[in-house]
Each structure stands twice: as C-alpha cells, then as structure tokens.
C-alpha cells in the first residue's frame, strides 16, 4: 500500500464480518460486497493513470470530495475489474456535472436512476454487453460498473433510502443500470457521435431514467409503425415527461433498427418523428377538467388550454429524444425510457482516456 494517501481503515475477522459491519453502517446496497482490502484497492488503482489523491468530483447531497482512491474503494466493493475504473470515474464525473443535478436525482421522490450508456472501442475491451439481455444479468462489466456508481452515490453522496433518497419506489436499476450501445447493429451514427465526439472516442453517458418499458411491435414493417409504438409508450399518461417535459431515450432493437434503416430514415428524422408523435391530448392529461382548471407552466405557452383536443408534447425539441440501438439480434421489441423531467436533469457525457481503448489493462 505504499504511496497511497492516508485513509481510514478498520479491521474485521473475515469476509462475513466485513459484510455484517458494512451492512450495519449502511455502506452497501443490500447485497454482499467485496471487502476493500489494501491489496485489492491497490490493484484496482493500477487500472487508471491518475493520482489516487486527485479529487475528481463533489458528490451530492453529502458534498464529499471524491478522490480516485475513494472511487476505487467502492469499485472494489462492487466487484469491478481494474480496467473498469476509468469508466466508473468518468461516470462519477458526469454525475457530478451541475447539468445532471445529482443532488436532485438522489433526493427525488421519482423513480429515476442514472442510466449509464457506454460507447466506443472500450465496449469491446471490457466486454460490455450491448447485445442479448444487455439490460439484464450476466455481464460483469454492466453489472459492476453500474453498481460501483450506485455505491459511490450511497457512500460518498450519502444517498440513504427514506432519509436523503426519498424515492417513493425506486426501481431495480438503482442496483445497476449500465449498457453499451450496439453500434455495430445500428444504421445510425452512435450516441457519442451525436453528442459531438469522434466515433473512435470511448464515452460514458448518464441519463436520469425511469426503468425500461418494453415496446412490442411485431406488426409494423416500416418506421412509421415502429416509431408510433415507441412514441405512444413514451407519452403514456403517467410518464414524468408528460407533466414536466424533458429528455427521453428510445432504444431500438437491431431488428427494429434494420427496418428503420432500410427505409433510409436518418436519426434526425427519427427524432423529429418522435417529437411530433409523442404527444397527448390536453383533455386526457387534465381529465377533461374533472379536478378543476389546469394550466401547467411546464407545457409550452402555445398549447391552447381551452382546447381539449390540443396536443401536448412531452419534450421541447427533437433533440430531447436520444435514439440508440442495443439488444440481441432476435426480437421485434424496442424500449421506451422516459426521464426525470425538464430542468431537473440533463444528459451528460464524459470522454474516456484513450488508453481504455488499448485493452492492455
């Protein structure tokens, strides 16, 4: 452990006692953790070329200076390999960006959890699952990178359920919520290119998201049908976006993406279509006046509040719809993932260092 900054350590008899101790102190997500011994933390730090005592972020709401060492400790606990650490650190940096509003994401009564989307060559080095069951179990990278961010939010950010994390329900993505984009199956430019990066740039992108909602469409054989199904799933009556506006993700399966791509629809056209279609009648949203007059200042001023048939959009612009491709080759399903809402949070990305693309770690 030579060379590491001084950091408080405690002793326990064995693995089981470490876990009992950590659970009792609220330092876990409820699942067993890997004990962050000096040796394992030292090995974890070999995965990143940054000084252990470098402060990379202030983590809300507790407002803790998160050092590389602090994040490495939590990454060990999550079960990460050392090569995952730059991605975890990038995710923490993105989460601490004021635009993401981690303070609000941690504290809200809404269900949202940070969805991590990984793009670029690093996906292959880390074997991030971008294909079959990518939102489910089975991939160590997906499982532990997302879990490491959550442990940072708990231990450094102080997100304690019922105390500072006031989510009415939360959702299973609060254990881990991390996928890679299936760039190879996409007819569009991948997310990092849409966000202004080079295709060979590895990135991590965070979105405060509801749980993924399956969109079944085995009937449509063109973009209009498929995207109408997705737009409808995004703009359901209970969607947070319908009441607060804001960003949303549409995750196209490779089969759906092939159909949309074969019709030569660009990603821009897809986003514009979703913006136009993901709307609800003013009368539906206000229960036709059953509970009194509703204005809702979050909706655009141009929505005619006197016309029950006026259509209310769920976002302010086509740019608020993020379209990625992920999932397995088989299945005419896509996913609709509404967000937390306009002004509450925005999608934030961070470029990862080039050395993550070399697969040397």
């Amino acid at each position, binding site marked *: 452990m030579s060379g590491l900054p001084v950091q408080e350590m405690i002793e326990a008899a064995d693995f089981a006692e470490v876990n009992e101790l950590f659970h009792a102190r609220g330092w876990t997500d409820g699942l067993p953790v890997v004990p962050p011994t000096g040796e394992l933390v030292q090995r974890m730090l070999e995965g990143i070329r940054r000084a252990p005592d470098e402060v990379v972020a202030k983590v809300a709401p507790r407002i803790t200076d998160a050092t590389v060492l602090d994040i490495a400790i939590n990454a060990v606990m999550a079960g990460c390999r050392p090569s995952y650490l730059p991605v975890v650190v990038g995710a923490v940096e993105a989460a601490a960006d004021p635009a993401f*509003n981690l303070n609000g994401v941690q504290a809200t009564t809404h269900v949202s959890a940070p969805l991590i989307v990984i793009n670029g060559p690093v996906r292959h080095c880390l074997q991030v699952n971008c294909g079959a069951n990518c939102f489910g179990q089975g991939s160590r990278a997906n499982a532990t990178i997302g879990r490491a961010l959550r442990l940072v939010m708990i231990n450094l950010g102080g997100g304690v359920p019922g105390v500072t994390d006031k989510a009415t329900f939360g959702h299973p993505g609060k254990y881990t919520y991390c996928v890679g984009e299936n760039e190879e199956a996409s007819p569009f430019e991948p997310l990092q290119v849409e966000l202004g990066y080079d295709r060979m740039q590895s990135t991590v992108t965070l979105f405060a998201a509801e749980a993924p909602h399956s969109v079944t469409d085995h009937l449509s054989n063109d973009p209009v049908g498929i995207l109408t199904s997705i737009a409808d799933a995004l703009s359901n009556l209970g969607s947070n976006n319908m009441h607060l506006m804001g960003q949303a993700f549409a995750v196209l399966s490779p089969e759906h993406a092939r159909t949309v791509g074969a019709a030569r629809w660009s990603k821009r056209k897809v986003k514009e279509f979703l913006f136009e279609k993901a709307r609800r009648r003013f009368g539906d949203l206000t229960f036709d006046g059953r509970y009194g007059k509703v204005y809702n200042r979050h909706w655009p001023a141009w929505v005619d509040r006197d016309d029950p048939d006026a259509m209310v959009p769920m976002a302010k612009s086509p740019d608020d719809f993020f379209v990625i491709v992920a999932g397995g080759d088989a299945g005419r399903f896509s996913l609709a993932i509404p967000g937390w809402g306009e002004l509450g949070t925005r999608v934030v990305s961070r470029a990862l260092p080039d050395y993550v693309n070399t697969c040397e770690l």
Partner: protein
Amino acid sequence: MTLKVYVPVGRETAEKAAAAPALASLKDARLMLLDNGKWNGGKLLRYTGEILRARAPSLEVYFERKPFFSRTADAEFISRLLARRPHAVITAIGD
C-alpha cells in the same frame, strides 16, 4: 488473521450551518415565504402567511418562488432573496 479494509465513505467537505434563532417577535418583521415550486407547498405557505399576518398586522410578508423545485437555487437567485433582507424565511415542500 483479520481483514483490514478501507472505510468507503470519503471525507465530507460541506460546511454545516445551524438553524437561525427564532424571532423574538413578529412585530415589524420582514418574513419571506419561499415556495420551492411544488404544487401544494405554495398553498400551505400562503395560508401560513395569512395566519401570521392576522396575528401581527405590522408583519411584512412577501412571497418568492424558486425557478424549479428539483434544482438547487443558483447564486443569483439567492443574492436576490438576501437583498430583501428578511428577518425570517419559511419554506415548504410537498406535492
């Protein structure tokens, strides 16, 4: 053989702030009602203001609303609030 493990909680850096002392009297005081933007919190605040003004007619009550309930108020907004030099601030949350 024991396991020596790191404590994973880092170091807190935020300054702790104590609650302001209660006002000795409402007479001639300036009271700010700070609505965080939640639907019903604002109603509760306005009602609270009415009750207090009924008790102390010289109480100056004014109402402010955060731009959005889910975001921390920015420095400019806080400066504007402080410029009104309230003796006390009451806020409320809740849907």
